[in-house]
């Protein structure tokens, strides 16, 4: 959501595709305004409010989920307005409290699927920025931040590392579930039957309360079915121009896989379950994604710039070096996958690929003027194969499937996540000795 807000600051009506998101103005906005803007975005209903999907739209599990969980309209529009809008003369820093309508008001904005947060958090981005923030606020082992970075650090801490304002949509932590990271892991486990590749900071080995609490309902077949879908889609793409030989492409099977995945995901959302958790997770991860998406003031201060065409993974790796945490080896793929897989899974959940004719759009590419869906799937296959090592394109090679009875509680993992790395030279701007974190 924050990446969308940065875009809206630059292009309020989403009419200029080439507009460059204005991360600087967003990071300079007061966190209470950002928190309230999230309330307004939630009230918009996201993809659940998209009329183009007709009556099939149960994106949040229940059509009333957004409306019933939002702040009452009068309260939201009166004393709790965000004031986040684009001034007539263009954005300024520090941003002002603007009269309504807020940015995005009236537009049907969507927020990302939970898979976006899962894939991004698998890079280790939260752990790295948590350590950056900790160092900024408790000591001077990093270079002194600029005022812009200081404001970013304050907003990051307020929005994601403390309890949100009471009664707000992002307020998930409580006496019953005090740790936001555990809440996210619980949601990932239930939806995707998978865990982040790195351990929960501070947890003792083997302690995984998010799995225990979920019960026996986790979608442990998700990754297996998803990988099979990618394999079948690739087969379809390979054989799209095949006019003479035997064509193993099976649109019915592709549709069946999509239907099964959709049913599996929708099962976890019944009655609106996980809607708030998803919203909270994707907003948090989009904040950190935006931080490394360009050479923001934070990236500059941490000496991790990568240039205009640079990759977020390169910036994250450089920042990780400053604080002694290496991101996942395949962070580059995971960043791009997060963006690509999110709309695909929304479509699968909304039953948009569940008939053979619909499923054909996933792999029909030859002769199609602008085969965006198939092009997206090709890229996903490439990246997924590179990130996970699964030989999706080698249809003759299948990994041995363990017997269901003997399957571990954690069947499949994404590639190895962030690991402690030796800190080359933690900056010691005040002249004291370098701090080495093991």
């Amino acid at each position, binding site marked *: 959501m924050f990446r*969308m807000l940065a*875009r809206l600051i630059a292009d309020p*009506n*989403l*009419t200029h*595709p*080439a507009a460059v*998101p*204005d991360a*600087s*103005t967003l990071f300079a906005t007061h966190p209470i305004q950002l928190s309230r803007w999230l309330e307004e975005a939630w009230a918009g209903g996201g*993809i659940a409010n*998209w*009329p*183009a*999907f*007709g*009556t099939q739209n149960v994106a949040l599990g229940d059509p009333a989920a957004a409306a019933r969980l939002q702040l009452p309209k009068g309260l939201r529009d009166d004393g709790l307005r965000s004031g986040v*809008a684009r*001034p*007539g*003369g*263009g*954005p*300024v*820093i*520090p941003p*002002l409290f*603007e*009269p*309504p*309508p807020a940015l995005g*008001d*009236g*537009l*049907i*904005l*969507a*927020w990302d699927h939970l898979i976006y947060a899962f894939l991004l958090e698998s890079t280790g981005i939260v752990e790295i920025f948590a350590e950056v923030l900790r160092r900024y606020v408790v000591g001077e082992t990093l270079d002194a931040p600029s005022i812009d970075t200081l404001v970013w650090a304050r907003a990051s801490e307020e929005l994601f590392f403390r309890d949100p304002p009471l009664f707000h949509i992002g307020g998930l932590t409580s006496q019953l579930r005090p740790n936001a990271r555990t809440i996210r892991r619980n949601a990932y486990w239930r939806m995707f039957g998978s865990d982040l590749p790195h351990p929960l900071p501070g947890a003792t080995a083997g302690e995984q309360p998010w799995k225990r609490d979920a019960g026996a309902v986790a979608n442990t077949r998700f990754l297996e079915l998803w990988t099979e879908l990618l394999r079948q889609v690739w087969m379809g793409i390979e054989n799209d121009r095949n006019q003479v030989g035997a064509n193993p492409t099976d649109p019915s099977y592709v549709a069946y896989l999509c239907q099964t995945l959709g049913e599996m995901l929708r099962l976890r959302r019944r009655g609106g379950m996980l809607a708030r958790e998803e919203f909270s997770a994707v907003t948090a991860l989009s904040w950190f994604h935006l931080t490394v998406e360009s050479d923001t003031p934070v990236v500059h201060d941490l000496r991790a710039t990568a240039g205009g065409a640079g990759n977020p993974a390169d910036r994250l790796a450089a920042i990780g070096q400053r604080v002694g945490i290496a991101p996942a080896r395949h962070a580059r793929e995971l960043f*791009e996958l997060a*963006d690509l897989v*999110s*709309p695909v899974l929304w*479509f699968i959940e909304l039953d*948009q*690929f569940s008939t053979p*004719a*619909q499923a*054909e*759009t996933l792999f*029909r590419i*030859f*002769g*199609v*003027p*602008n*085969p*965006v*869906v198939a092009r*997206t799937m090709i890229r996903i296959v490439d990246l997924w194969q590179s990130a996970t090592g699964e030989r999706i394109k080698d249809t003759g090679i299948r990994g041995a499937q363990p017997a269901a009875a003997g399957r571990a509680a954690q069947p499949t993992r994404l590639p190895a996540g962030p690991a402690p790395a030796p800190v080359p030279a933690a900056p010691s701007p005040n002249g004291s000795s370098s701090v080495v974190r093991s």
Partner: protein
Amino acid sequence: MAEKSPDEQSAAASAVNERLLQLLEQVVANQAVQATANLQDEFAERLRAAVQYRDSRDHAVSPLGYDQLQIGLRFVALSNSLGRFGSHGERDVALLPAPQLDRGTLTFAPLPPDAASVILFRADGEQLGQIQVGGGDAPVIDAPDAAWVQVNDVHGSPIRLGFPRRVPAGVYARSTGATRRSDARPAGARAT
């Protein structure tokens, strides 16, 4: 469709010029009323033919059906709505600038150059109606029940999706002539 050779195109252009010249001579010969009407008809007919020829020249028939193309369009529109407009130098745009819905009247921003029709849908997916438009038009339509609109091109392929945006009313409405508080930049603020 078969390509016309340069010679054929040149001959066709010459024929058009000759015909136009004849008509202009009629005007000069005080047959103004009838000739002007003929001229306008001729222009319209030739223009239609030229547009059809131009569009059909590069148009390959897609192996995907209309419903499948609609799925592709929705997919790109959703990606746009998530803030993504393509990557690696490619621009994928399916979202129409939101038409303004004010007291039942939909006002569109100028449509894409290849727009040929606008289809209006209710929230339940039922089609409300279809109007013919031209590229660059900014139609104004009475459609209080329209929940979303789809723009098709001259081949009938869906090319844009739009979600009407209700014009804020009441205490939150901005009058266009009013001076906005933020127009005055405070001391210390910097432009981005």
